[in-house]
């Protein structure tokens, strides 16, 4: 059964130095508040997994939390480069990071295998690409019936998966809807999981297109209203596109990034305090 915890406590309990951690959310429902808390607590040597390491992972990488990144697309969607990710890969700043690179189809198959208790997933993928030469996590496998050659990828089973969802009930059953990405699979593949939610309600009512992740496969539920910002939670908030654009300038150079982390992450106590410091609370309640 999931415990209802403060985000600070949940991160302290489940995210350790050296943990393998997945924070998922496909443009929608990205757990930014949780990412900030990991930086705030100064976690190090994380193996960070994410299909689309966008701003939240740019922050973790730049802040020096990450020693390995497993991913399939690292950019600021609709804006451009992830400068901290690039600086780490191109110039080893703040330190070298190892990368394990896949395609979306492969990452999805890896999470599905992880959620299914299988050691590997099978797909038609990567054939003819140079990705195959860069990692030992892409291999071929033969169909025992047709002898056809396919691709195998190893299961992903993070120590902890963190996602953001719309709401939970007081027993910790989690409900999310809209674009669901790979979040359910990422939670089910993980040994522990933290879910930040917009709202905790007495009773979950059915929502069209919604899914419920039962309390007994979740470790902790944390109330963090607007915790996906600048991503959004369908039905609660809208994407703050200007924030995505402004990130480009903030992250472009090391100094402005470091300053930003100091002022807004290390210098704040929690997500509310962060929100006030970057001035988003007004904006969000207008959108929400």
């Amino acid at each position, binding site marked *: 059964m999931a415990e209802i915890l403060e985000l600070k406590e949940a991160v302290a309990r489940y995210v350790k130095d050296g943990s393998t951690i997945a924070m998922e959310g496909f443009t929608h429902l990205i757990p930014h508040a949780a990412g900030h808390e990991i930086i705030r607590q100064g976690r190090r040597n994380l193996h960070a997994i994410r299909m689309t390491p966008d701003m939240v992972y740019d922050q973790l990488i730049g802040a020096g939390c990450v020693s390995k990144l497993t991913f399939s697309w690292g950019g600021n969607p609709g804006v451009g480069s992830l400068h901290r990710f690039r600086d780490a890969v191109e110039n080893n700043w703040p330190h070298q990071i190892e990368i394990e690179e896949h395609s979306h189809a492969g990452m999805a*198959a890896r*999470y599905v295998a992880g959620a299914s208790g299988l050691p590997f997933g099978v797909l038609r993928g990567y*054939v003819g690409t*140079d990705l195959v030469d860069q990692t030992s996590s892409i291999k071929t496998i033969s169909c025992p019936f047709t002898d056809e050659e396919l691709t195998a990828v190893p299961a992903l089973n993070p120590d902890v998966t963190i996602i953001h969802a719309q709401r939970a009930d007081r027993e910790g059953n989690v409900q999310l809807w809209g674009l669901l990405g790979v979040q359910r699979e990422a939670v089910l593949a993980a040994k522990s999981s933290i879910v930040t939610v917009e709202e905790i309600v007495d009773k979950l009512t059915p929502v069209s297109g919604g899914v419920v992740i039962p309390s007994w496969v979740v470790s902790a539920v944390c109330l963090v209203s607007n915790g996906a910002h600048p991503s959004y939670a*369908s039905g609660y908030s809208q994407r703050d596109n200007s924030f995505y654009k402004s990130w480009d300038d903030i992250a472009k150079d090391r100094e402005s990034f470091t300053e930003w982390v100091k002022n807004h992450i290390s210098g704040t106590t929690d997500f509310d305090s962060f929100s006030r410091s970057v001035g988003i609370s007004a904006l969000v309640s207008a959108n929400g």
Partner: protein
Amino acid sequence: MVNVTPSANTISTDDLMIVNAARVLGTLAAAGKAACFVGIGLPSTAANLARRLYSPEPVLIYESGCIGSKPTRLPLSIGDGELADTSDSVVSVPEIFSYWLQAGRIDVGFLGGAQLDKFGNINSTVIGSYGKPKTRLPGAGGAPEIAATAGQVIVIMRQTKRAFVDRCDFRTSFGFGDGPGHRERLGLRGGGPKLVITDLGVLEPDPETCELVQTQMHRGVTAEQCVENTGWKLRIAKNVFTTDAVSDREINALRELQSAT
């Protein structure tokens, strides 16, 4: 991103690329090949324009899990809530890649990238070497499996010497590989690159050599210009077409779409 020109009558090269791509989609949809796997940016704009211009309209599928999206404005990102809200069906990301793309249900995939080589291979991973990249690009995303599996691939890229290269620094998405027969040897199920739509015109693979050949040029573009802006020894087709002028209906629909965004 789309360069929105304020006047409906000033037609930018981006507009030309978008309109050209929309026309292709309209033709394919009329032939019953309507399922289109769309990325954000020019492809999404082109696909949404085609939906407004043609009947039957293409079916828009986004890798975020949206099937049959009918957005009223251009989505800001591939995960824009507008896409989910207007879709026939929203599925998980694993499912969009397994049940829909991998199963061979996608007729047309749109791709772009940092480099395109003469055999239609695409690089969106690194410029320079993988271990010590000069420029680290975002990476593969959904592209390798779209390139391998879609019924046909349409590439949209600006034609420059830097981008249109003899050989990609990294092969992220497989076109025709090293040339004729390579796709078949690898057992790839999709048809591979069919069209490369650029700001100068259109390139198509030569059916014999698989090499991309300039088959269409926009009004006012010269063969020399195309050759100059291509990193390999570009052939111009004998009967090179001139792109049809953008019609009022096309540009008005495009402007309407852009202003709604």
